[in-house]
């Protein structure tokens, strides 16, 4: 199936979960990433159970602490 990850179309296995996508995309510091699916935040506790569907739009939001 095709999903959109950070604005880019990607082919992923049917039934992939948010946790599976985090692994497939090799997300940095995965325990601290915020994930939105179709403009809704997913609770970190639901990453493993939240199954993605065809056409879903997923965004990863990362901590960036620098500035000075």
């Amino acid at each position: 199936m095709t999903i959109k990850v950070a604005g880019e179309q990607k082919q992923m296995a049917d039934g992939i979960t948010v946790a599976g996508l985090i692994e497939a995309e090799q997300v940095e510091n995965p325990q601290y990433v915020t994930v939105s699916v179709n403009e809704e935040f997913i609770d970190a506790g639901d990453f493993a159970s939240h199954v993605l569907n065809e056409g879903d739009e997923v965004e990863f939001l990362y901590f960036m602490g620098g500035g000075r």
Partner: protein
Amino acid sequence: MAFTNEQLERYSRHIILKEIGVKGQKKLLNATVLIIGAGGLGAPAALYLAAAGVGTIGIVDADTVDLSNLQRQVIHTTNDIGKRKVDSAAETMRAVNPDVTVNTYYDFVSSANIMDLIKDYDFILDGTDNFPAKFLINDACVMAKKPLSHAGIIRFKGQLTTILPGEGPCYRCIFKDPPPKDAVPTCKQAGVIGAMGGVIGSLQAMEAVKYITGVGELLVGYLLTYDALKMEFHKIKLPPRGKGCAVCSDAPTITKLIDYEQAACELKH
């Protein structure tokens, strides 16, 4: 307030813009902006806001200028090493534009002083380098209903969002709590490309100018990310404000400011 001939000349490139004009330039001259952190983000933001004629600029920083700052903190020069950053920044801003009144605060922000620091300013610009400060500034701005430009930079990446409390989502809507100390690297540990502060800090200044003049659409409800290596900007639409947010929902669970523990390696710089 009438413009002097010198001001008409100085701000001519603003005044000629139909969106700004004389009216917008007057708004800038009457505006007050507080910049927290006189570093990678704060330096370019302060320079552009001073040049733009923002009438009063406050700058908060408890650090002194170090040689390792000069790769990115363009408001300070080699001659400023050892000076308080707030003094060095104030000198440069006054030299750029004598119209600007600069207020300096040689201090760290904390729950004890933040409300007092932000209360007299129209717009707050977060240029800090650590999560405890970023969460504190967000929460204080939500509580005081102050518009805020939040930003972060690391390595070849940067991001920012504009927060209008009560209207759009806040920093804590995106990130519930600060990461444990040292779990996510700082610029000191991971490095940052110097021009990143210029890109993101200038975008923060742009948001401040747009807010003050009421021009265009603010980055409210979006996180704009920039990846310099891929040369890509990406605008992430955020969910609406407050849904379960501990500080900006209509039934907040955080009603008092929190001083989170700072990573030890960040205390000095």
